[in-house]
Structures are given as C-alpha cells and as structure tokens.
C-alpha cells in the first residue's frame, strides 16, 4: 500500500523555498544597502 506522506513533501518544498528565496532576498537587501552607501559617498564627494 502506498503511504500517505504528502505533508512531508510540502515541508520539503517549503524548505527549498526558504533557502532559495531567502538567499535571493539577501542579495536584494545587500544590493540596496550598497546603492544607499554609493549615494551617500556621491553626496559627500559633491
């Protein structure tokens, strides 16, 4: 008989989403921080 374990599949997909989307979010946040820093430096230079 095939076991019913769909909940574990959903948990696994949630883990994949957590790590992959989470990593992309860190890239976006870090890019935003650098943009702000760059703008600050540009203002300081002017």
């Amino acid at each position: 008989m095939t076991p019913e374990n769909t909940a574990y599949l959903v948990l696994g997909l949630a883990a994949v989403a957590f790590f992959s989307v989470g990593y992309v979010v860190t890239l976006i946040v870090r890019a935003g921080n650098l943009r702000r820093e760059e703008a600050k430096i540009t203002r300081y230079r002017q």
Partner: protein
Amino acid sequence: MSIASLPSDQAPVFEQKRTVNRTLVLPILTVLTLLGVAAGLYFALAYVGTDKVQGNVQRIFYIHMPAFFGAFVAFGAAVLGGFMYLRTRNTKWDTLGLAGIEVGFMLALINITTGMIWSRPIWNTWWTWDPRLTLEALMILSYAAYFVLRAGVENVETRRRFAAVYGMLAFTTVILTLVIVRTTAATIHPVVVGGESGEGAFSLNATPGVGAALGVNMLVWGVLVPVTLTWYRVRLQNRAEKIAAIKAELLTK
C-alpha cells in the same frame, strides 16, 4: 582616443552591440532560470507518477539530488577561482571563489534539509550517522568555516590567499561525499546513479518519466540556478569592492 574613452553614443556600432548583448545575458538567464524552476516543479509534482513504495515524499528527490550537483558546480567554480587567483592575483578570481562558495553553501543546505525531511517517513528518523550523511554534514561545516576564515583575516591580500587555498582544500569533502556510497557497503543511502552497473558506470536506473523529471531538474538546479546566482553574487561583490576602494581613497585624502 581609445574606444573605451568615447561617450557611449559615439562608440562604434560593434562596440555598442557587444555591450547590449552582454547586459542582456543575465536578464535572459534569470528568466530562463525562473521558467526552468517552474518546469522542474511541474515535472516533479505533476508529470512523473507517484512512487508506489515511498509515496509522494519521493518527489522531493527531484530537487534533493540536483541541488547537490548544483552545490558541486558552485564549489567547483570556487576551486577554479582559488586556483586562478593564486596564479594571477587578479581579484576577479577571488570574487568568483567567494560567490561560488556562498551559492554552493545554500544549495548544500537545500540538499541536506530535503534529505532529512525525506528520511523521516522513509527511514523513520530525521538523522542517522550514516557515512554519506556524516560526510555531507562535515562538508557543510567545512564551508561554514570558510566564511569565518574570510571574516577573521584583516589583511585583504592574506584573506584572499587563505580563502583561495581553503576553498580548494574544502572541495575534498565534496568529492568524498560524492563517492562514499560507491566505496563503502556500510551505508543505507540509496545509490540512484550507477547503483547496479558497477562502480563509476553512472547509468541511470530509472523509468523514462523519472529520467525526464530528474533530467529537467538537473539542468535547472545543477546548472541554471548556480550559474545565475553566482553571477548575481559576483556583481554584488564587484560593487562592494568598488565602494570599498572609493572609501579608502577618500580616507587617504
């Protein structure tokens, strides 16, 4: 006057074309990766049939295994970066090393977590000290130590040199994790590729549906995801290095 010093609207046509083509590659790759992830999910969740013995949780395997190969590709890029940095001392190779290890680390975490979630209903435990699992844990810890090492060395040149050597040495844990199921009988981890055809044969023991789902996801998680994310991480690091250089210049004035 060189081509590089010309304003973009005065640059020769071939130069403009090259720039446009180069700037288009990453967005195209990003769209391909997103479409690939969607296609991979379709193949894993809808196209392929349900495993009669393991049930629906077996479908996680279509991401679990390709994620390891994605990590392998990204960590491999870090080895190339480390080797080339030591040879040329060009910082772009150090950047590739850092980006590869960061992306590989994320993919290795996906691999180990999905493996643990699969093993709970199938092996009746979240974790067992099987040689394959133990080596993978060791691999992840080795790469976690890479970030500690990078953060702990003050001198930029020394940091890059240490990181290059460490990134190359840490790859031995990836190789060991990959081959351990073929070199020891004391493992309960399934050998999907090359399992029954003898060591190193690498024939896929799967039905056509399983082969297609695995093939698509291997292309997505094993190639597209690591390449695209590594590229974005390299761009981010280049920007950070540029800002650090400007800051250093302002401080010395």
